[in-house]
């Protein structure tokens, strides 16, 4: 495979284009509302109407408006049909001839689409995820070719550093720095891992990227492999995402056939292989060291860092771990230049971020916006606010590690630092909207239950602390708790946050802490009055025994 071949494939693919293209969304959301049947029906209808020469029916990835599926987009008219049933196929076809139909149309000019800046998702919904040619026609693998032919590995690292890209998995660690650390190690064996263990409940960004544009992720990984000097990559995908796994397997096979993976990528001396490792239902495996343990076929328990994976990771070798969205950002940075990328977003948070918008909101779906977009624009302008006269009460970001941002802070720009200041985190990009009917204590309890069940059990504060935190929250919900229980809750949050071994435990108290911070009254109004002091008794000795004294005043549970 050389540049000429790449261009040939692109031209052949573009020449295949027909007068009309019907893009049928075949991402998980639409498939679960009969998306595949709609596509099959459209195929049949096209055949039946003898329009095969004029109309292409293409299965594509996510068309964003997941709540309105199945979705079909029509090119070149730029019309989006929503909630299409298989029997609507003939009627939909007839609109190509200019006929009107009562089918539900989405407005591609609506604020939901207008405020988006697709970068990671630029191909999503356009290319056919099952055909590598379709990706190549969208300039796919061009970045890889340029890197291999025109750039030395350190130049690639420096381009990523200059772009200001930060990890999209949640913590926002500078990607270039990570790459540089791995590249600088002395080892001869290094690994690249793509973290596709998107475990946050309420997040489906990575799933959409993998299902819509799998080659994009592969390309980013191969570029990374070249930059850090690795020959083997792993993609760790959740077993809950069978479609994504299938499309990745397919994509890897196609890339190998074309000489874009394997030995001598693009006929260069660079070799790179990618294997898929399938998770088995453990949220903690999103944590780097647990993920590596799982790739090695062990129990997915984290280990203390340092040493960091960049020095000693998979099989004890230096390992680069980035998540799906981070890798998907790599090809455009190479193609369009780090300066271009750095011009998007805010001072410290560059580029765009994909969010999965869900919960009590008019428009649910996938959005990609520049960093720094105010939360209000996302949930009110784009998402249309709470449904049916509801009021947005809070927005939950970052899943079980994140927090609830109250409506009063909706003008916060969405970037790593601003969200951290509010006690939440960017996280991987799940955004759950809550309205006035949502009980914030129950939300905190829900997330604590999640953390309790997903704790790996290795370190004491997370294993035993989440159990007690959950019990205290349930007690408060049941209106059986007193002020002392609330104090105890806060004390435990402090312990679990500061003493847990890994990120799961360290962030597990965040939903409690953020709801305590912004919705404390919901906790207080549930408390029972403190135990009445005996009428005849003066208050218990005010002086606490000094620290060295082992006898402490007791407290009721």
């Amino acid at each position, binding site marked *: 495979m050389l540049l000429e071949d790449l261009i040939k494939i692109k031209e052949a693919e573009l020449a295949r284009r027909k007068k009309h293209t019907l893009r049928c969304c075949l991402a*998980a*959301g639409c*498939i*679960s*509302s009969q998306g595949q049947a709609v596509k099959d029906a459209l195929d049949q209808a096209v055949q039946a109407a003898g329009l095969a020469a004029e109309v292409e029916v293409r299965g594509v990835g996510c068309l964003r*408006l*997941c*709540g309105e*599926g199945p979705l079909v987009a029509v090119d070149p008219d730029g019309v989006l049909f929503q909630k299409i049933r298989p029997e609507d196929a003939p009627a939909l076809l007839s609109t190509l001839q200019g006929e009107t139909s009562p089918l539900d149309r989405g407005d591609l000019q609506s604020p939901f689409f207008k405020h988006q800046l697709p970068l990671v998702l630029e191909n999503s919904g356009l290319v056919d995820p099952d055909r590598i040619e379709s990706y190549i026609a969208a300039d796919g693998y061009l970045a890889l070719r340029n890197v291999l032919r025109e750039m030395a590995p350190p130049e690639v690292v420096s381009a990523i550093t200059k772009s200001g890209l930060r990890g999209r998995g949640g913590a926002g660690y500078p990607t270039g720095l990570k790459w540089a650390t791995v590249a600088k190690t002395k080892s001869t064996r290094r690994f690249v891992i793509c973290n596709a263990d*998107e*475990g*946050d*409940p*309420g*997040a*489906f960004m990575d*799933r959409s990227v993998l299902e819509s544009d799998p080659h994009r992720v592969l390309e980013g990984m191969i570029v990374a492999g070249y930059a850090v000097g690795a020959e083997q990559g792993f993609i760790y995908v959740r*077993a*809950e*995402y069978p479609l994504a796994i299938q499309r990745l397997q397919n994509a890897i096979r196609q890339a190998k056939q074309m000489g874009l993976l394997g030995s001598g990528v693009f006929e260069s001396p660079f070799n790179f292989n990618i294997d898929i*490792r*399938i*998770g*088995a*239902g*453990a*949220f903690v495996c999103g944590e780097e060291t647990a993920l590596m343990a*799982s*790739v*090695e*076929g*062990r*129990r*997915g*328990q984290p280990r203390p860092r340092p040493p960091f994976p960049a020095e000693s990771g998979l*099989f004890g070798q230096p390992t680069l771990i980035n998540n799906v969205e981070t890798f998907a950002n790599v090809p455009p940075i190479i193609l369009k230049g780090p300066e271009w990328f750095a011009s998007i977003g805010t001072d410290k948070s560059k580029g765009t971020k994909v969010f*999965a918008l*869900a*919960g*009590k909101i008019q428009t*649910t*779906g*996938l959005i990609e916006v520049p960093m720094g977009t105010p939360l209000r624009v996302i949930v009110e302008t784009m998402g249309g606010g709470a449904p049916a006269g509801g009021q947005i009460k809070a927005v*939950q970001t970052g*899943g079980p590690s994140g927090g609830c941002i109250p409506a009063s802070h909706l003008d916060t720009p969405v970037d790593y630092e601003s969200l951290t200041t509010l006690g939440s985190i960017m996280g991987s990009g*799940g955004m*759950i909207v*809550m309205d006035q009917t*949502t009980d914030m204590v129950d*939300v905190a309890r*829900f*997330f604590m239950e*999640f953390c309790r069940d*997903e704790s*790996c059990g290795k370190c004491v504060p997370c294993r035993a602390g989440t159990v007690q935190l959950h019990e205290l929250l349930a007690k408060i919900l049941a209106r059986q708790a007193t002020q002392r229980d609330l104090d105890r809750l806060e004390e435990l949050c402090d312990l679990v946050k500061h003493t847990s071994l890994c990120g799961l435990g360290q962030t597990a108290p965040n939903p409690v802490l953020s709801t305590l911070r912004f919705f404390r009254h919901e906790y207080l109004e549930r408390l029972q009055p403190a135990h009445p002091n005996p009428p005849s008794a003066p208050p218990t000795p005010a002086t606490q025994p000094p620290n060295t004294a082992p006898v402490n005043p007791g407290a009721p549970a």
Partner: protein
Amino acid sequence: MKRHQFRQDALIEVLHKAQELFGFLDSDLMHYVARSLKLPTSRVYGVATFYHFFNLKPKGAHTCVVCMGTACYVKGADQVVAALEQCTGVRAGETTPDGKVSLATARCIGACGIAPAVVYDGVVTARQSPADALANVKGWLGHAA
């Protein structure tokens, strides 16, 4: 296992395959896997029980998985689970004594756009109310009204 060259680090892949073929992982199967990969049996058991995806007991003829992700939860998935638990007489995570239906919950199946979602025998179904779910599951139980 051959495909994975009997590599010890492919244990999870091998267990996935084994469960796909046999439906669940019983002691003999885990013993066989351990022998083939030259791993201690305790290691295989430790891994198989760490991950929620692996079952050590046979599943029912039908499975119903209710997504309890945040988006589904705020849209009432808990009520769906409660209704199903009442109808089947078993709690989530269990199988009815007659082996007909396994009821389970999932952390998040990533279908938040269509919440609350329920997976009936592998088919993801959108926007399920307790009544929808009951209608689906009652057919499996055989004592349908």
